[in-house]
């Protein structure tokens, strides 16, 4: 009997021990796990604390930067200083994440302050315009009237067309200008040679920009003096005048940054066109009207365009745009004739009709090298604005088709939007 009771006792003890041990291990497990959780929580806590400590340091850093910028705004000496500060603000803004809206707001306020300072520093400004007059612009113009297509394009390149309130009847670039003028959003102020003073006044402008050398614009300038409206006349003789005009308009409108960028871009594009030096420089005549024949002589930007496009202006010794007789064309003997806005077939017909057999003495006619440049490239080649770069490329296409993979026979007779919806890109100069 004690054997069995001994066995049961042992079993009971074993069970109890088992239960005890299980409970103990459970308890230990529990303790460990909660310890683990606690450790885990502690770790997370710690890491959070570290994180927020970092964030607070970032936050503090940014706040400090903002304060520094704010105080430096009180000591701005020039427009360059302002540009540097604006860049700093931009960088800071980029380094923020979404949750730091407070900081974002402060940076935005800084930007507003910079803008206001910009206007105070940049104005009043004294502009020397193309006619040599000094014009004082008191404050940033917000209502601008353009008297010529080239002026509108220059405003476009300095990014000030949003402030246009009136344009002349012929401005057509950028395209929205023509529509705005048609539906009345922009006031139509008349033609290039005959603007309407009343239309200009009705647009209530604080700045009017015209072109030097046009009598009507000079008259408008005198007239508007009585109304206190400044009129700037842009220079328009040479290609470098385009760069000058960009800087003048940039200064007058307060968009100096954009103007400088546009001027640099214009000069570098011009340099790129010059290619690696031309193997030949054919003699070129540009004809802008028939009957009588109008050609481009020296002191015109079209003559300079011939030079940049790799040719030589056969009428170098004539000044300005002037008329010639068909005989003078025979005498000049150009290798290539380019009609800008004039049909090449019309040119050949006209000359053959006027000269008869003598027309064949003109190399351009004998070798079938009469081309035309049509819309929109004729516009570009006729206006002193940065778009003239494309006009020069079109001219280069005609004078040196080999650069672009054409020759005089494969080249279409007329370079316009039909034959070339886009111009080929200027090849990089060969090494």
């Amino acid at each position, binding site marked *: 009997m004690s054997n069995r009771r001994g066995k049961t006792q042992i079993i009971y003890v074993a069970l109890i021990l088992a239960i005890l041990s299980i409970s103990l291990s459970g308890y230990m497990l529990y303790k460990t796990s909660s310890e683990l959780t606690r450790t885990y929580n502690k770790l997370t806590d710690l890491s959070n604390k570290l994180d927020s400590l970092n964030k607070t340091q970032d936050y503090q850093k940014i706040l400090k930067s903002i304060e520094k910028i704010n105080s430096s705004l009180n000591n701005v000496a020039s427009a360059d200083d302002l540009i540097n500060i604006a860049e700093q603000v931009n960088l800071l803004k980029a380094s923020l994440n979404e949750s730091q809206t407070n900081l974002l707001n402060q940076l935005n306020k800084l930007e507003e302050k910079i803008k206001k300072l910009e206007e105070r520093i940049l104005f009043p400004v004294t502009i020397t315009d193309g006619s040599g007059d000094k014009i004082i612009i008191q404050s940033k113009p917000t209502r601008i009237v353009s008297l010529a297509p080239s002026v509108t394009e220059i405003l476009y390149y300095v990014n000030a067309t949003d402030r246009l309130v009136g344009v002349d009847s012929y401005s057509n670039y950028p395209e929205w200008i023509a529509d705005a003028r048609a539906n009345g959003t922009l006031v139509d102020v*008349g033609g290039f040679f*005959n603007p309407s003073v009343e239309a200009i006044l009705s647009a209530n402008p604080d700045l009017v920009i015209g072109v030097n050398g046009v009598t009507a614009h000079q008259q408008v300038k005198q007239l508007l003096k009585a109304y206190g409206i400044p009129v700037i006349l842009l220079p328009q003789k040479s290609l470098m005048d385009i760069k000058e005009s960009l800087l003048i308009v940039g200064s007058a409108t307060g968009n100096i940054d954009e103007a400088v960028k546009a001027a640099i871009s214009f000069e570098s594009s011009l340099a790129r066109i010059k290619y690696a030096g031309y193997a030949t420089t054919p003699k070129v005549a540009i004809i802008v009207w028939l009957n009588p024949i109008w050609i481009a002589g020296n002191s015109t930007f079209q003559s300079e365009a011939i030079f940049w496009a790799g040719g030589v202006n056969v009428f170098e010794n004539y000044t300005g745009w*002037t008329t010639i007789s068909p005989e003078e064309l025979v005498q000049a003997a150009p290798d290539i004739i380019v009609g800008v806005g004039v049909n090449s077939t019309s040119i050949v017909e006209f000359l053959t009709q006027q000269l008869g057999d003598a027309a064949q003495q003109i190399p351009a006619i004998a070798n079938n090298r009469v081309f035309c440049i049509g819309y929109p490239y004729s516009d570009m080649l006729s206006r002193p604005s940065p778009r003239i770069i494309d006009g020069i490329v079109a001219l280069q296409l005609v004078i040196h088709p080999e650069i672009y993979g054409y020759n005089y026979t494969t080249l279409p007779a007329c370079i316009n939007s039909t034959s070339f919806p886009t111009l080929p890109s200027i090849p990089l100069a060969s090494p």
Partner: protein
Amino acid sequence: MNKYIPIIIVLLLAAFMVSLLTGPYKNISISDIINYFFKGSQAGKPGIIQYRLIRTTAAMVLGAGLAASGLTMQYALRNPLAEPFLLGVSSGAALGVVLVLVLINNANPLVIYSVAMIFGIITFFVVIGIGARSGGTPTSIIVAGVSVSYAITGIIIILITKYINKINVTFMWLFGTVAYTLRETLLYSIILLIIGLIPLFVMAKRIYTLILGDDVSESMGVDVNTTRYASLILSAIISSAMVALAGPVGFIGLAAPWLARLMAGNEFKQTLVLAILVGILLTLLSDIAVRIASPSQELPLTAFTALFGGPLLFYLSKKTGW
């Protein structure tokens, strides 16, 4: 007083009002105009009214001057086709303006005004000199005037064609416009007009006798030569001022005197008054027509003075003999 004068004055006042209300900017009303006269000019609407007022006044001064000058010429030269620019004033002035534009870059409009006046008067004296040398009769003076005008026009054509880049004035100044009138030039023209008109009225009786024929006037005790030359000089001063103000504007100087003679007969003083009134009215109507026909691109004034004046002259020539 002539019975036609009240009607014309009423028409004038109406035309004046219409002129102030016409233009590309549509929102000017009569109340705006009344406000302008009482409150003076600031920017905005009053600025436009001010521009229109200057332009309207210029048109009126132009009409008065052309008519007075034309009538005087017709009496002094005893020729119904005489007009203010017959004796070379306008071609001389145009030559001066073209030379200024070729030689000076960006000439000041006041310089252009002075040069136009000076060249106009000098050309007139050249013509008178040639005319006097070849006999001093109205016919010889007219012949001198026509030939000098043509010669100068030839030079102008050559200059314009050769220097078209500099002289892009093209047709605007050459056919007359009041669109770009400056206050200063308007003031000078008004002063010169008055300087020319007062002696004309003083000499009215003597000028009247000129159309009776040289021998008749002589027998009435009038010094024909002095009267003729004096009235021509006065006419030239006025027409030079008009050309300098607005460029050569044709037909007013011919049509207004004719209408005036139709209404008032041949007595010089009455006819002069009427001619001036009619001239003002015709020029006002032409400028209004210019603005209606082409609101944003300016047209030259001669477009409409010729359009109105041509048929008018034809009609008048049927109604009246000289």
